[in-house]
Structure formats: structure tokens, C-alpha cells
């Protein structure tokens, strides 16, 4: 198991068969806040489906045994000393990935709602389409857990807003299952939105010239812990995100995509 994680080892070609050179180094970033009930399963599933990837759990100031259990599963653990929120946690993962020179990062939630069996599909699409970010969308596939009715309304509004302002249709802007290229990681390591980052991040990347793609995934209901968004806060969530997206129309905080490629 330990040898299989060595990135320099020769491994079978990926499903798209384009690993002519060395396989790109892949880091799976798992932001986790008080997810002791689910974290072990997330790590073992991720390792089972992506034996060639490194796994880093960003333990965002958890007050339970999240960090201990992740270490017991031999994952790398970034212990953030205070709770910096989902945005700060994911950004910490990007900073680590950039410092350690990873080629690709895939973000999956620590609560078990994302199935690591789709990581390869995200990575293949990232490489195949030369994309900067690939979102795992639960609305492009049949079946799976599709969130609550209240949240689906919010998602529809955000979809419409993003399409109207950026010109690109994103079917699942709130999905936190994503793959990022090296250039995207570098840009997001220096600026990443904080409170409800996913839709904002998708929008600002599209607006700054990054190529954002989607692949179908099926999601589960979360296994334990509690969601960062209560159903009652859905309305407030939508308003906040809409304002944040509106602000990005005039913001220059994210570096624009270089046109060198």
C-alpha cells in the first residue's frame, strides 16, 4: 500500500491513455471540520479508487477526533490551529499543493457525500479538455442524492445568475467536488473566496478566462456531522452569494488566466 502511493512508480496508463510521460502528481484535498464519523471511510475509499494519489486532510480546527482518525489512516493532515471556514481550509490545501509542486488537485468533502470513484473521471476531463477546473455535477447524471428542495431552488437561481453574467451554463455551481489544474491552484492559493466559496469561485474563474468544465457524478447524503448550511439559511446563502458574484463583476483580486498555453 505504501509503495503504491509512491508517485514515481510505474503505474498502469489512465483510462484516456495519455500518460506518455510520467503520471501527473495528484493530491486529493479533503477539507474537514468535525467529521470524525465519516473521515476514515472517505480516506479509505479515496485510496481504494486512487491508489496513486496523495491524500491531505485539512483539519479545520476540529474539536473532535477528525485529525487523529485521519492520521490513523495514514493521510497527510494539515492541522489548522483555528477554524478558518471552508474557504480558508480549501485555500490551505491549495497552498500546500503549490508548495509541494503537485500537478493536479481534487477536492472532495470530508463528510462522505462525494464518491471518490469519480475522481478519475474529473482528472481525465481536466487533462482531456485542457480545462482549468472540472466540477463534479450531480445534475448531469441520473440518480444519486440531489439535495433538498429548498436548496435546489437556490441552486437554480445561482445557475441562472452565473449563466446571465458570465455566459456559461454551470449545472451544479454549489458542488464542492472539483479538480484543479496547477495554474488554477496557483491563482486560488493567492485569492480564494471565503464564506460560501463554490459558486463564487466558479464564476470568478470563468470571468477571468479560465476554462471550467463539468462531468456527471452521483452524490450520497452526508454520513455524519452537520452541513455548514442549515435549510433556513438557504435564502440568506443565496442572497450573499448573489451579492458576492455581483461584486466579482468589478473585482480584480483573482489573477487573470495567462494566454500562453
Amino acid at each position, binding site marked *: 500500500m505504501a509503495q503504491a502511493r509512491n508517485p514515481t512508480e510505474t503505474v498502469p496508463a489512465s483510462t484516456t491513455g495519455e500518460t506518455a510521460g510520467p503520471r501527473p502528481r495528484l493530491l486529493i484535498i479533503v477539507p474537514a471540520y468535525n467529521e470524525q464519523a465519516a473521515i476514515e471511510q472517505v480516506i479509505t475509499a479515496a485510496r481504494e479508487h486512487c491508489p496513486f494519489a496523495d491524500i*491531505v486532510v*485539512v483539519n479545520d480546527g476540529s474539536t473532535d477526533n477528525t485529525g487523529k482518525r485521519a492520521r490513523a489512516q495514514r493521510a*497527510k*493532515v*494539515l*492541522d*489548522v*490551529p*483555528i477554524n*478558518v471556514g471552508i474557504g*480558508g481550509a480549501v*485555500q*490551505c490545501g491549495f*497552498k*500546500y499543493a503549490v*508548495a509541494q509542486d503537485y500537478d493536479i488537485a481534487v477536492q472532495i468533502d470530508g463528510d462522505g457525500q462525494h464518491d471518490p470513484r469519480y475522481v478519475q473521471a474529473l482528472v481525465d476531463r481536466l487533462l482531456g479538455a485542457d480545462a482549468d477546473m472540472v466540477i463534479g455535477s450531480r445534475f448531469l447524471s441520473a440518480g444519486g442524492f440531489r439535495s433538498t428542495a429548498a436548496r435546489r431552488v437556490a441552486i437554480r437561481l445561482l445557475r441562472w445568475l452565473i449563466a446571465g453574467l458570465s455566459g456559461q451554463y454551470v449545472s451544479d455551481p454549489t458542488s464542492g467536488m472539483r479538480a484543479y489544474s496547477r495554474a488554477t491552484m496557483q491563482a486560488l492559493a493567492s485569492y480564494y473566496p*471565503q464564506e460560501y466559496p463554490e459558486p463564487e469561485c466558479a464564476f470568478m474563474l470563468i470571468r477571468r478566462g479560465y476554462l471550467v468544465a463539468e462531468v456527471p457524478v452521483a452524490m450520497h447524503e452526508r454520513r455524519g456531522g452537520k452541513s455548514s448550511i442549515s435549510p433556513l439559511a438557504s435564502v440568506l446563502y443565496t442572497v450573499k452569494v448573489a451579492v458576492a458574484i455581483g461584486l466579482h463583476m468589478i473585482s480584480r483580486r483573482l489573477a487573470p488566466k495567462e494566454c500562453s498555453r
Partner: protein
Amino acid sequence: MIPHPIQALAVLAALVYLLLIVLALRSSRMNVRQSLLWLTSGVVFLLISLFPNLLIRAGYGLGFIAPSNALFLLWCLTLTMLVFYQSLTTSRQSQEIRNLAQALAIERLSNEELRNAQAAPRRENQACDSDEER
């Protein structure tokens, strides 16, 4: 125009206000940059209570119906500015704290991995030694 007891009270209040700021500065509970705004407001407060005619003449001159309106407006604007400035400061600081927390987490993990890497070859060497002995 203003009866003396009130004026005396205003001067006293301004002096206490300035004293509080100076004491906070002396014991380094407030940095100089933050204190400039407060000191300025304290001096203005003191000047107005010592020479109320300044305010009265300026108020009427600018077209206020009553000089007290001018005072309230001045004070409201000052406080709004102070709160705005505080808001900017806390935003910047929370960003700085977040950056520090992230840097600390990354540093800790690098240290941990470095320690593990140093421990691992030592264990391998020991294994080789025991093989040779056999």
C-alpha cells in the same frame, strides 16, 4: 451664551476623554496610528467646550438652524469614519490571521514529514545491520 455650569462640565468631560486616550497610549494598549483619530476628536471636543462661540458662529454661518445640529452632524460623521476604519482594520486582520493559520498548518505538516523521513532510513539501516550479523 452658554451657562457656565454646562460649559465647565463639557470642559471636564473633554479633559477626561483626552486623559483616557493618553493613559491608553502610555500603557501601549493602543497603537499610535489608531490613537491619532481619537486624539484629534478629543482636541476638537475640548476646543468646542472652551470656545463655544466657534461652533455657534460656524453653525449659523453654514446655514444650520441650530448650532447643536452642526455639532451632532460633526460627531456622527466622525463616529461613522471611526467605525468604517475599524471595519477595514478587522477585515485586514482576519485575513492576516487566516494566512498565518494556514502557514502554520503547512509548516507543521512539513516538519512532521521531515521527522518521519529522518526516522525511516534509520530503521532501514538497522534492518540491514541485523541482516549482516546473521
